[in-house]
């Protein structure tokens, strides 16, 4: 595979512009432009470059305005929490460092994992359904409140409500994933997370919080603090490529909330960003060794030109350059934007954001996408109203994964 250096530069610039827009995923760009550009020699790697830049840059709109980030979707939760605390720039720095280190670690580990991926795949498969059921139960049981609880079901009220939300989300998720939508997860997760945040005013509170300016402390300390979570994220991201039925790293990230509570948002953000980064990085090796592409762009590249082990250096190289440029852009743009963000008129902007997201959902998936988003918004309001964890809506992915694992 080859990309002309001039086109590499152009792809990086285009990637930065597209990466700032929620909903404009390289999958969508690829689907639209490949019929015209698919025969152009540089196009497969140009798509990989778009993917790499977006990998890092997507956390900017995710943290600023709470839109779903990549395939983990959950990155917005700790990011928005940090925005509400005035630590938005910290959140961006955590994401930038995590993406860069996770991509580097995953690239080093990829050649080691390639020979053993198919065997690991076969070994894990019989147990995946049971693991998912256990993990989901643990997520719900975590809703038990300590202390005396009066009223309906007492201390079991939380798990009961969580189960209800989980099952509703699972039903919607199962229906949605079986519809012929271009980007079903975008409609689902804008509905589950972003719209309720806009409607409940959380979005506005986060945006109007005056953000800190750039910090002064020793950055090496930041890396030491984050390394265990980045390492865990790299391993979990590789697993998410491995486990059948776990179609996105979002499910793995949800399960990770059991290990890393959202009470420490910076750590969880590092974990989620690393899962996202390593999942994408491992996807190239997975496609070359097993023939299975778990990332949309990688699948598109494979259709244009079969991915062989001989292609991996070029793919990895393009991806590494793009991820580094994306991480740099994330912090450079964020450093300029964050101190000014709170001064914007968020009453108006929040409404415009909602309209933009609805328009994106409609552009991608038409009226059906809007219906999915509306239903997801209704379900997404329930955790806000009932005080259960919003991660229960990840039943939308875990539920179908459990059904798939047991053969339904």
């Amino acid at each position, binding site marked *: 595979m080859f990309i002309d250096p001039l086109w590499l530069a152009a792809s990086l610039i285009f990637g930065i512009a597209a990466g700032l827009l929620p909903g404009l995923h390289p999958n969508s760009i690829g689907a639209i432009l490949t019929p015209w550009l698919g*025969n152009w020699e540089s196009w497969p790697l140009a798509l990989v470059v778009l993917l790499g830049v977006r990998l890092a840059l997507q956390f900017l709109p995710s943290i600023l305005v709470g839109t779903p980030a990549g395939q983990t979707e959950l990155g917005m939760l700790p990011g928005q929490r940090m925005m509400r605390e*005035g630590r938005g720039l*910290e959140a961006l*720095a955590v994401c930038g460092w995590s993406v*860069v280190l996770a991509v580097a670690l995953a690239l080093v580990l990829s050649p080691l994992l390639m020979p053993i991926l198919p065997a690991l795949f076969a070994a894990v498969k019989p147990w995946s359904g049971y693991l998912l059921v256990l993990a989901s139960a643990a997520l719900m049981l975590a809703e038990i409140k300590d202390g005396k609880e009066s009223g309906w079901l007492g201390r079991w009220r939380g798990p009961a409500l969580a189960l209800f939300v989980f099952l509703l989300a699972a039903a919607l998720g199962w229906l949605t994933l079986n519809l012929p939508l271009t980007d079903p997860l975008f409609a689902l997760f804008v509905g589950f997370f972003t719209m309720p945040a806009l409607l409940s005013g959380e979005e506005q509170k986060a945006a109007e919080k*005056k953000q800190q300016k750039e910090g002064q*402390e020793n950055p090496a300390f930041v890396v030491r603090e984050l390394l265990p979570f980045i390492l865990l994220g790299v391993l979990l991201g590789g697993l998410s490529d491995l486990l059948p039925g776990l179609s996105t790293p979002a499910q793995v990230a949800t399960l990770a909330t059991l290990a890393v509570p959202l009470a420490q948002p910076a750590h969880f953000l590092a974990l989620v960003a690393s899962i996202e980064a390593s999942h994408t990085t491992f996807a190239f090796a997975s496609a070359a060794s097993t023939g299975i592409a778990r990332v949309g762009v990688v699948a598109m590249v494979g259709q244009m*030109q079969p991915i*062989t082990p001989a292609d991996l250096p070029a793919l990895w190289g393009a991806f590494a350059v793009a991820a580094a440029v994306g991480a740099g852009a994330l912090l450079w743009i964020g450093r300029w934007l964050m101190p000014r963000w*709170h001064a914007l008129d968020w009453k108006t902007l929040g409404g415009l954001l909602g309209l933009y997201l609805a328009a994106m959902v409609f552009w991608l998936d038409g009226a059906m996408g809007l219906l999915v988003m509306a239903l997801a918004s209704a379900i997404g309001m329930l955790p806000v109203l009932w005080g259960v964890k919003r991660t229960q809506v990840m039943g939308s992915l875990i539920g179908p994964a459990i059904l798939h694992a047991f053969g339904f």
Partner: protein
Amino acid sequence: MGDTSESSPPIPSVISSPGLSNRHFSIMLVFMILAGLALLYAWPMDSAYLKSSTASVALMREGQWVALSAPISSVDERATGTSIQMCDENSHCVRAFAAQGTGPLELAVARPGQMLNVWGEVAVATGGTRFVRIHRASLNDAGE
């Protein structure tokens, strides 16, 4: 409008926000970009592995790119370029063609019996026969 009366919380001691001015982050980025460029442009270009059989080329759409590896059964030097027939172990054959002046240097020494690794575009000749228009190629001796 924004909340300007409330002061920002002190930066927690466990996390700071290095920003782009941080030397370590910048060094990390530069290193990663240089390493990526080295992989992209300096890594030796290897031959394409067999991913598409000669039989499947017959099913491909015009314009599709293919990575193909098979033994050479014949080499024809023509005024228009070099035409090579490649046949796999099931006797499925396909022609690979490089126009005069555009073919990779390897084709000048290609001989029957050698393994040819080709990366190119599926094209359709007059009459409907599909062939591979060679973009890159490399040779291995038979049995290598």
